[in-house]
């Protein structure tokens, strides 16, 4: 028998806690092995004996405008923890938060300066010349550009999660409509702020589903205040959602002008530091994951890469869920993570 007053006090305490504090996140043990400017390369401490580990290391590349700890949200609900337990030599590239001095950083810098250097360090530490790359969201754009330009330098497996690569279907992409040159002056925004502020990016993402994000999310918390497991999950996710990072001005300009407006990547017209990005040069084994309920990156943005790459071994995997939910939601550990592991394990020998 519980006292309703005590219950109400407990629930009020929980509500105050989740609304005013940050959850403990990114707790899988790791070591910092490389830094450049704001970027950091972490290696997760292996828990599987070396002889049982997969010899091909895996590098995780997340989006530039969110914190990568969504991949290691909390113990028991962490993709990183899961993959380390499966015997992967796992690395994470954390881009950090760009400052005013980084406003001119472009895809060129991230894919031809930062990524090759981080990968070189990963190869040196792991002792393997071959490696796998997993790119999620904007991270998938970076890994696709890298794979097209430098994929011959040991890239064995490429995993693209909710990858916004094809911008030809303007009607199906809400962001494309919002950032149309008739309505959105990218130069004026960057002239004012330098970098694209994290708060504006956050508003853009939430405004795609305003009722869910601004009301439904809190209604869900209110309804489940008596369930500590739901509250804990909500707290961790809210900590991540509210931890915004600005996007470097140069990258934002390329994202809007080159990709959203002109679809230069899939049309083979994107030029990175003088080199044309030709996705048909990708020969690595390819797994593309599409979230069927993705409102940020609709499936039409990730499908066409499959027919353009030269990879002989390729798979398109569709899963129900949203942009973030497929990797960090309650079903991720049952469906998405085992599928990625099942695909990658035999290809990591």
């Amino acid at each position, binding site marked *: 028998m519980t006292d309703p007053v005590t219950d109400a006090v407990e629930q009020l305490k929980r509500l105050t806690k989740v609304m005013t504090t940050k959850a403990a996140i990114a707790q899988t043990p790791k070591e910092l092995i*490389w*830094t*450049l*400017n704001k970027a950091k390369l972490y290696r997760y401490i292996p828990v599987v004996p070396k002889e049982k580990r997969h010899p091909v290391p895996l590098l995780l590349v997340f989006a530039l405008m969110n914190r990568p700890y969504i991949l290691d949200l909390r113990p028991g609900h962490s993709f990183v923890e899961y993959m380390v337990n499966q015997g992967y030599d796992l690395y994470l590239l954390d881009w950090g938060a760009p*400052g*005013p*001095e980084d406003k001119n950083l472009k895809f060129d810098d991230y894919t031809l*300066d930062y990524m090759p*250097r981080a990968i*070189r*360090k990963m190869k*040196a530490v792991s002792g393997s010349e071959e490696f796998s790359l997993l790119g999620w969201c904007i991270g998938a754009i970076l890994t696709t550009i890298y794979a097209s330009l430098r994929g011959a330098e040991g890239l064995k497996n490429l995993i693209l999660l909710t990858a916004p690569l094809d911008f030809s279907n303007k009607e199906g992409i*809400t962001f494309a*409509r*919002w950032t*149309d040159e*008739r*309505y*959105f*002056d990218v130069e*004026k*925004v960057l002239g*004012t702020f330098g970098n694209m502020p994290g708060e504006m990016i956050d508003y853009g993402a939430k*405004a*795609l*589903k*305003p*009722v*869910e994000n601004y*009301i*439904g999310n809190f*209604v869900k918390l209110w*309804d489940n205040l008596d369930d500590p497991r739901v509250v804990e999950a909500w707290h961790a996710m809210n900590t991540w959602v509210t931890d915004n990072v600005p996007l470097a001005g140069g990258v934002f300009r390329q994202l809007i002008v080159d990709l959203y407006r002109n679809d230069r990547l899939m049309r083979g017209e994107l030029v990175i530091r003088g080199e044309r990005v030709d996705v048909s040069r990708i020969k690595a084994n390819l797994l593309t994951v599409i979230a069927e309920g993705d*409102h940020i990156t609709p499936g039409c943005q990730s499908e066409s890469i499959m027919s353009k790459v030269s990879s002989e071994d390729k798979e398109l995997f569709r899963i129900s869920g949203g942009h973030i939910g497929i990797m960090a939601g309650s079903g991720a550990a049952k469906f998405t993570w085992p599928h990625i592991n099942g695909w990658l394990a035999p290809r990591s020998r």
Partner: protein
Amino acid sequence: MGDEAKGAKPFDPMEPWRGMRDVYLDAWSKTMVDMVNTEAYAQATGTMLDTYLTASAPFREAVEKAMLKTLEQLAMPTRADVVSIAERMTNIEMRLDDLDAKLDSIRNQIASVGVNLRPEPKTSKAVVKKTAKKGKK
């Protein structure tokens, strides 16, 4: 033992209200998703942002100029100075990374001809000894 102990849900007078609320939120959500997908919404948000940027520009410029003059009067570095130093730091980091890469390459080449450049560190030997002693006990 009540129904609760048997696993049945206790009666909740708020349940019908919650159901109605969820139906309403669902309908509202669909309407809003359709609304934000329109040209009119894109145009309206674009105009609002443009108006804000235009209206705030003179104020921002005035603050920037005043700040610049104040920092100069106080012989303090300006934002541009700090940015310039940060850019130079990144360039130095790149050079160091290049050196690191070259050192790794030289180390690998030497290792490939059979010379061990990385002897076991003394600290790790000490750890091994300690562990061995503990094992004997």
